[in-house]
């Protein structure tokens, strides 16, 4: 009989190999996509010239519009690692965008508007936490309910007759609202991007080097073991929901700033994008493991695909394309994270 020690080294090697594949495939996919779109219209457009996928304008634009999904999906990952989900992130983003735009239009300074949106986002997250952790409503149902609530509230804030919070007679939207998400601060990229970058870096660190990340994995991996070790899932997961809410607010402010208006439908579908990003990044459905960094790569893949497809196929293919990506990501994720039951 193989000694236990040898067994573990073999298993260790096999695990290391699998881990390597799991770590690298996503960069390969991103590379392929970028290369693919770069050569897609090779005859028509000059490489790196105007209109090309990798032209400076195009890259800057992609990164600017990516700020919301990058922020959101990072926080979303932590929540999924703990084994929970939040389908209301898109509506929370819309609601905070609307409030942000409204405050600015009515004369608030950027700091006040931004701060208020952030607080609102955290409150929205706290409400989700209450429903899921205290009232113990299934996360899917609880966050679908809040999705409806937040979306409804956003729609109601916007007066009938207009589609969004924007300039109206006598009350123009200040032009500087754009600055946050568009004005060039460094390398052509705006504050919103750097804030998103900061958030990503912070959450990568949180996941790997802080108690939050460690406990999220413990709760998602083996809740009983976590509880026995003195970890209170209610407190920690509630905190994660608040964090997700905060990031939804950051995303909302960025979107409102970018579009110079508060659109109550601007966040629609964000939760699906987050799910795709998280799936591509290899986070398991059941929780216990995942990586903020790889989710971010997944988010970049979504951004590239969305932008790139726009140049290659008509707009009405977008939904189908996204759906295919989601189903594809599901299949991929399944291949990467399934356990092999060894009963024979």
């Amino acid at each position, binding site marked *: *009989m193989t*000694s*236990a*020690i040898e*067994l*573990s080294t073999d*298993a*260790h090697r096999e*695990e290391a190999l699998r881990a390597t594949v799991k770590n690298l495939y996503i960069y390969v996919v991103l590379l392929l996509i970028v290369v693919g779109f770069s050569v897609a219209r090779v005859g028509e457009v000059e490489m790196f010239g105007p209109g090309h996928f990798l032209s400076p304008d195009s890259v800057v634009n992609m990164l600017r519009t990516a700020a919301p999904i990058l922020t959101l999906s990072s926080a979303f990952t932590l929540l999924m690692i703990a084994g929970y989900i939040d389908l209301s992130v898109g509506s929370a983003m819309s609601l905070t965008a609307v409030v942000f735009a409204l405050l600015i239009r009515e004369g608030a300074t950027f700091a006040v508007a931004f701060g208020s949106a952030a607080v609102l986002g955290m409150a929205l997250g706290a409400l989700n936490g209450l429903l899921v952790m205290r009232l113990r409503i299934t996360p899917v149902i609880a966050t679908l309910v809040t999705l409806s609530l937040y979306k409804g509230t956003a729609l109601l804030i916007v007066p009938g007759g207009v589609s969004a919070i924007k300039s109206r007679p006598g009350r123009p939207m200040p032009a500087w609202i754009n600055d946050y998400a568009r004005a060039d601060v460094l390398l052509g990229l705006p504050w919103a991007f750097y804030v998103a970058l900061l958030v990503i870096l912070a959450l990568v660190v949180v996941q790997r*080097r*802080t*108690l*939050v990340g*460690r406990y999220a*994995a*413990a709760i*998602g*991996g*083996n809740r*009983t*073991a*976590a*509880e*026995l*070790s*003195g*970890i209170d899932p209610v407190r920690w997961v509630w905190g994660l929901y608040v964090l997700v809410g905060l990031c939804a607010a950051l995303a909302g402010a960025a979107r409102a700033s970018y579009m110079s208006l508060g659109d109550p439908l601007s966040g629609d579908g964000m939760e699906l994008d987050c799910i795709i990003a998280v799936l591509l990044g290899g986070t398991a459905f059941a929780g*216990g*493991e995942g990586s903020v960094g790889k989710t971010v790569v997944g988010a970049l893949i979504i951004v590239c695909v969305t932008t790139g497809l726009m140049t290659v196929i008509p707009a009405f293919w977008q939904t189908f394309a996204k759906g295919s990506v989601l189903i594809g990501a599901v299949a991929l994720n399944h291949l990467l994270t399934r356990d092999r039951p*060894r*009963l*024979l």
Partner: protein
Amino acid sequence: MEPTANVLELRGLTKDFLSVRAVNEVSFDVRRNTVHCLVGENGAGKSTLIKILTGALPRTSGRILLDGREYAPRNTRDAKAHGVSTLFQELNVVDQLTVAENLTLGTEDTSFGFLRKSRRIDRVIEILHSLEPSIAPRQRVSTLSVAQKQIVEIAKAVAAEADVLIMDEPTAAISEGEIERLFRIVKGLRSQNVTVIYISHRLDEIFELGDSVTVMRDGRHIATKPVAEVSGRSELIQLMIGKTVFEAYRQRSEPPGEVVLSVKGLCNRKLRELSFDVRRGEIVGFYGLVGAGKTELARALYGADPYRGEVAFHGRRLPTRTDEVIEAGIVLVPEERRSQGLFTILTIRGNVPVMNMGRVSHHGIIDGTLERRVARDAVAELRIATSSTEKEAAKLSGGNQQKVVFSKCLFADADLLLLDEPTRGIDVGAKSEIYDIIRRLSREGKSILVFSSELPEIVNLCDTIHLLYEGRIRETLQNGPELDSHRLLHVATGGV
């Protein structure tokens, strides 16, 4: 304060469940820094006693003194905080984290929430390496074997300065070589100021490992002695069985009929090359203790788990899908009646016909009248104590619940019944009724396979007895007046 000589003192500890007294005025002492073994048959009350010690169950009466002070844990975490840790069979490690992360889970050193490297991590890893130097702290726990995960848990308990470490059948799931290592570690724990309470049915381990041994039987404390003063296995077995008068096995009036089930070389992850035959009307027992492979065998035959080997039923290959096995005429009364055998939110009427809906329906439409009649018949036939068939199954007593499971299975018109621990946790009266049912079925020509760890049950019921140990049939005996029940326990606990 001077540490007391006894780390634990139990005084008159009693635990009642409704009509069953699981632990009956148990009193004994556990000396500090020893390996104190706890043995007893299934149903002796060991696991209930342990659950009280670990705070998973409240006691009914009695006292426990831990380190000389009153000890009454409210839950498992509370027990841990007092220094009583447990190594369960379901390992409490997070597979997705590393060894080091598991070791420090809940006790991390942080500054402003950031995890810090600290002396404490080093200390814990030192402890781990003193137990087993080959486990790398940065390894993911999912890559470890069961034995290694156990060691990680032991290290964690030692690092948490546990006074008492309870190990419940730790060797059930690990290999020979690993057992040696575990023994070495357990013995070493004494010098780390840890007292080990070691529960095992493998009597050889008691002699190898234990300083003292406590024997329980029928919820009572029988004896506590230093292992050195125990003359041998037979003395322990004698204490475990006592003067239990087994209801005399009734010799069959007719010999069993032709072979209906023929098993050759059945194996899977837990079972090794099992071969046996079952005849019509025969009651065949599989006796073994934890980890012997009883449930695995039952599930394999039932198509619930995969296996290799040849199994023929009525001369034809036995299907490997549960629904087809049922159709072929084999049913299973599962080990866990609440989570596997019954639909607790349904009524008796809802539960009974489930395995053979065809008999209460016409062309797929359920006949309510037929259904009600069937349920009433079942209640009458098995004497299920209930005022109506509309009672929710969850509200029945254990014995009646098991009877419902039986009627469920009987309704499937099976020829062969697999019974996995058929009377576990059931009061004496209901047990006796169920045994009558089993004997009646056998007289009617049905074949019964009883998988049980209760010695009296096997001895009272079965015509043929296979002794299972570590997935193998070690011995096969025919029941009769010369049956030596000591031999049964001897083989089931690892003897040869």
